[in-house]
């Protein structure tokens, strides 16, 4: 599903550049759940940005579903991104829209019918325990609440790949466990999941495969009890990638 071949990423100009990723090779199979860990500044968020084509690799290749994403034309990138659900480290909620709309964005982008949106978003808000705050502004949420909204937003389209960057940094241990259980549930239904986290206790408890980055290098790939999903949903949809104008009838 996700393959990285000799991926390096350097930020900044030649002279004063920062090497965020250094010759990383890794592979995440379809339906797999993977923890990504490592000290601050190890390159975890950078790796996620590369998958999303927010940044381009300095060298090497990133393959998603067998396709070299950095060979895609600009017009195709939105269609690539629709295969992902992403929880950003800094949440990135839209402050001018309320909680409900923030969660609904993904479905609106796909142009799904309003009543489906209302049903699905309602379910998710209930799952994260925020159904009562559906019409609050993200500005008025506590840190943990905002993080949960970000998680709901990532899940709304049952994406083929779920990327979570530090999804429990603002949650208490109890909520963290519940959220990761939710993520596991999604994974069990076929979604490939990558969770970047510092929470050693969480990794310990859920014991999935763990990739450890350090200074941009992949220093450890520890596989444990593999809990491969039964592939119910979450198949990758790359059909649109060659036909970027298909959406705009």
């Amino acid at each position, binding site marked *: 599903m996700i393959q990285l071949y000799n991926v390096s990423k350097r930020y900044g100009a030649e002279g004063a550049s920062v090497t965020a990723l250094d010759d990383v090779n890794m592979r995440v199979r379809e339906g797999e759940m993977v923890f990504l860990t490592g000290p601050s500044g190890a390159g975890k968020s950078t790796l996620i940005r590369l998958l999303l084509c927010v940044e381009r690799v300095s060298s090497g290749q990133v393959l998603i579903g067998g396709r070299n994403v950095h060979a895609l034309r*600009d017009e195709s990138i939105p269609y690539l991104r629709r295969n992902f659900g992403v929880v950003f480290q800094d949440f990135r909620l839209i402050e001018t829209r309320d909680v409900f709309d923030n969660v609904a964005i*993904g479905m609106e*982008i796909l142009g799904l019918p309003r009543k489906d949106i209302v049903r699905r978003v309602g379910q998710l808000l209930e799952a994260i325990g925020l159904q009562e705050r559906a019409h609050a502004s993200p500005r008025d949420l506590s840190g943990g609440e905002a993080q949960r909204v970000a998680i709901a937003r990532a899940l709304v389209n049952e994406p083929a790949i779920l990327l979570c960057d530090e999804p429990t940094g603002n949650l208490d241990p109890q909520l963290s466990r519940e959220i990761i259980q939710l993520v596991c549930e999604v994974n069990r239904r076929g979604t490939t999941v990558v969770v970047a986290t510092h929470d050693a206790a969480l990794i310990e408890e859920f014991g999935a495969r763990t990739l450890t980055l350090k200074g941009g290098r992949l220093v450890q790939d520890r596989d444990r009890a593999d809990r491969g999903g039964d592939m119910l949903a979450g198949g990758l949809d790359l059909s649109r990638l060659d036909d970027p104008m298909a959406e705009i009838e």
Partner: protein
Amino acid sequence: MSATLRLISFLRAALRLMRGSPWLNAVSVLTIAASLSLCGLFAMAFFNAHTLIDELGSSLTIQVYLEPDTPEERIGQIEARLREHEGVKRVRALSSEADRERNRKLLDPALLEGLDDEAIPGQPVLALELDSSLASRGDLEALVHWAGQIEAVEAVEDVAFGAERLRLLFAVLEIIRSVGVVLSAVLLASALFFVFTTVRLAVWGRRREIEILSLMGATPNFIRAPFLLEGALQGLLGAVVAIVAVGLLHLELEGLVRDVYLLQVQPSLLPPGMVLWLLVGGPCLGVLASGLSLGRAFKV
């Protein structure tokens, strides 16, 4: 999803954008209204200046004095020749008697005492009205030249031209025109720049929102559509405000002109179809400015 449904969802998004920052929206609407008002005001001023110039210009005449005994037939020939000339709007023929009558009125009664009718000068005259739309300094020189030619024509005795007065008038017209063109160009450019800038700043203020949508897989068109619709709605609102403003100003000016009773020249000071132009122009301006602003404001 059908096109209509999609449009409705974009409209909802546009309204949400507008509700989200009412203050910013008020500014944009006022901006467009101010620009359109200025344009309207200027169009009005220009239109009326032009009418006024036409009005004044049409009173410009050249008097061609013919020899007293020129036969009717010959007068007709000369008249026809003059009529042909470019820049001549109308030719009026005055008989010797009509000219004498005119002169009698002009001369001092004391002077005329004891003179018999024949002593009062009178000769056939062709009065040429000039087309003021051709009035420029170049045209004037051409006319001076032409006047010389007329004088050479057999049977023409004299050409009263009033060139000095004409020259002054043309110079004034020319200045009004130049200043008008320069001012209108500056105004329009700054109006466009103004709207473009405010929209661009608005987009800049929402750069995070745009970035997030893009990260979630929204196509550039999906992101643009609400902004464009918002621009169109703002433009429409701005146009309505501008129409009200220009209308009020128009009433005021009309009153003023009616007061200065000598210039009651036309029923309406508004250029025809201006309301329509503003109503179409407003949304166009809004969409254009939004479009230009969005164009380079975000990348995928």
